[in-house]
């Protein structure tokens, strides 16, 4: 295999193999694989309606994937996207409620800033714990997820609850006029553009700026970075902050574009799914976009699978899991191939 194509061909074959395995799985569950694929296709990409559905779901996924992908450049495995979404969404709702009387633009900017700061602070804290106290970032970010979810549940059921929300305890509404709008006359909200722009900006930041260069140095060999006088701690804090900020913004988007309030729907697994997407995209900010759309499509099609084929609702999770495992395995194969032939990835 020509070595230049390997980075594309290997994940692609991993995706193909995943579909084969998933086919076997649904067949065992009693459905016809080809029909199931057709349903997935129809539910995710078949019509303009399903595309809108898919892209709407891809929006937060792009941002939560960045929460894992950005620190990964430093060699950190951060899995706190879920917590950052939850806390970002909660804080955004509070800001929105506080700014009910403000101009909609002011309210939206205020909500976005609040969510960015909250999410950033959360994951920044993970980075700080790592370098100042040597606390493993994976464990601490995982634990923070639980803490954030518990805080959300406590607040929306207790002190912050809008008494009118009966079967789904939520905060007060941020005001219909203050909701995030849609792209053109589609039903895709602006959050999609946010995600897209964030991925693009971060790609440029990592690839073309001195900051990205410094991040590569710190991630590749912190000793060498120190030798060159780089502020290793500051860079670590900044990068973890940016990752958390992206996921926090995803929470704001869910509140401002979808629910209008903060409630348990914020904890819908976007953060966890972002981890898979980041790994599947090899932490490349631009590759996150198609991966997020793919995973968003699987999410969008999941209803159809249940309805048409009588498959359990965890079926789409199985597909995600298979993709994740195979892409990771392909990574290992690629690394080994590279070592053998004398090239490094």
């Amino acid at each position, binding site marked *: 295999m020509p070595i230049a194509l390997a980075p594309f061909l290997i994940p692609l074959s991993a995706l193909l193999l995943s579909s084969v395995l998933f086919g076997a799985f649904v067949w065992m569950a009693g459905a016809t694989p080809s029909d199931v694929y057709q349903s997935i296709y129809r539910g995710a990409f078949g019509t303009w309606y399903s595309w809108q559905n898919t892209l709407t779901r891809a929006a937060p996924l792009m941002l939560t994937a960045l929460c894992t992908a950005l620190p990964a450049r430093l060699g950190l495995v951060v899995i706190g996207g879920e917590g950052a979404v939850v806390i970002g969404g909660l804080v955004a709702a509070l800001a929105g409620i506080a700014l009910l009387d403000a101009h909609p633009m002011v309210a939206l900017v205020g909500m976005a800033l609040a969510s960015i700061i909250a999410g950033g602070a959360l994951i920044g804290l993970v980075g700080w714990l790592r370098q100042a106290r040597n606390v493993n970032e994976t464990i601490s970010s995982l634990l923070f997820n639980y803490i954030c979810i518990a805080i959300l549940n406590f607040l929306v059921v207790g002190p912050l609850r809008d008494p009118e929300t009966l079967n789904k305890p939520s905060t007060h509404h941020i005001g219909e006029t203050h909701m995030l709008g849609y792209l053109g006359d589609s039903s895709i909200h602006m959050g999609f553009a946010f995600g897209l722009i964030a991925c693009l900006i971060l790609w440029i930041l990592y690839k*073309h*700026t*001195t*900051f*990205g*260069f*410094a991040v*590569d*140095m710190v991630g*590749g*060999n912190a*000793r*060498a970075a*120190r*030798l*060159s*006088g*780089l*502020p290793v701690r500051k860079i670590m804090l900044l990068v973890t902050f940016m990752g958390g900020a992206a996921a926090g913004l995803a929470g704001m988007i869910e509140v401002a574009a979808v629910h209008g309030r903060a409630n348990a729907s914020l904890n819908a697994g976007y953060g966890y799914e972002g981890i898979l997407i980041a790994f599947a995209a090899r932490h490349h900010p631009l590759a996150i976009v198609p991966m997020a759309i793919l995973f968003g499509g699987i999410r969008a099609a999941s209803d159809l699978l249940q309805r048409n084929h009588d498959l359990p609702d965890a079926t789409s999770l199985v597909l995600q899991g298979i993709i994740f495992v195979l892409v990771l395995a392909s990574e290992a194969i690629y690394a080994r191939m590279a070592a*053998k032939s*004398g*090239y*490094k*990835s």
Partner: protein
Amino acid sequence: MTGLALEAINVSKRFGDLQALDRVSLKLKKGGIHALLGENGAGKSTLVKCIVGFYTPDEGEVLLGEHQQLISNPRDAHDLGIGMVYQHFTLVPNMTVLENLVLARPRLPSIIDWNKERMAIAERMKGMPFQLPLDAPVNHLAAGEKQKLEIIKQLLLDVKVLILDEPTSVLTPDEADEVLGQIKDMARRTGLAVLMITHKFREVVLYADDVTVLRRGRYVGSERVGDVSVEKMSEMMVGREFSGTALAREPAADQGVKLAIDALTIEDDSGLPAVSNLSLTVKGGEIVGIAGVSGNGQRELVEALAGQRPTTGGEIRVMGERYRGERQELLRHRFHCLPEEPLRNASVSRMSVAENLGFRCFDRPPHSIGGFLRRRAINAYAQRLIAEFKVSPANTAIPIGNLSGGNVQRAILARELWDQPNVLVVANPCFGLDFTAVAEIHARLMAARNAGAAVLLISEDLDEIIELADRIDVISDGRLVYETTPQAADPIVIGHHMAGHAGEPHAH
């Protein structure tokens, strides 16, 4: 016990458009040491990696023993009794010697009976060329002991062929003599075949039986060591007669103190004092050499100067100002530092050669403008450095980790010697370099001094220090214990002070 232990026939290996090995053959006899010589980048490491199956040769084959068994992957090599000691340590630092030895075995039982293992290994240790305390944690061992442990680790696996890639570059001459002497003994006794890569003719002459020379990936020749002179070997290596350039030590104008270290105290990883109350000054146009046995605080001192380790007392002043190793200070004062093991300490192996050479300049125009990198400018800069320092291959796009050990050293030296340093801290700059490169680096250090740099040279090679330094300090147990000049230097006296045998350390 003679006979063929291993044969490599017409082995070729290509990396991209670089022919790293071009039909190289080698015959390894039982019961002796075979030295492999060649300039940096000649293909020595690549050849041994082909022999142990780490790389698959593009052409040619490797056969083991009289039965001519083919080796085609690392497992073959292992099963057939080939062991390799890499140039860098592969031990688990926070485990004990015993644990490291047991874990090295390929097939471990799921439950390890440590008592049994300890007895078995203690028993087998008796037949080994060196003894080591089984319960000492590896991170408390000195470099020489670690190297012995690496070798014992292989010997306990009953290897018949032992390959050593620059085994003595981290050892003092005394340690090297001990290790190589014992290995030679063992080879004679047991028929072990040893293939040793080295850059030191002294070791070839004293310990090797045969020598094979490579030059730019080609086989130049094999000889009995007794039949060739050192001059002949060096000529085979570089393809011409080598005339070392004498170092011109110019009387430098007094430039004032550029580097001052004042009562510096540094702790090692376990929080014990590694350097205590160390003071020293270096003037512009002067080389101050710090001699000492490795493990006496040199590493911590260099790390503190490099900004890689916090200090617990005292201060460092550069050009009269307090120095903390921040980037602004480092660039403004033109403070340059070359620590040992550049791959571990001074470069990012997965970044390209160009990027690694750009570490000092990437955030300044013309290499970046307004925070945006101009890769072309960085690349052009790197090309100039590479040409000037003869880094090979002259390809700035490959990851620096793919360069040969000596070429990594050259590339990082290029980065740090460029741009007229004001202060230059260098630690063991010639580890792993071939003799032409050593002469060249020495000349460059001298040139930097003559141009007015304050050079602090920390080296375990006393000859190097005597050759280069204007003043010599001896470090022992984290203190400077003796000062002399190269003119007055007596290696025996210095050696005594290095070993800490000269009574109480006196004030300095």
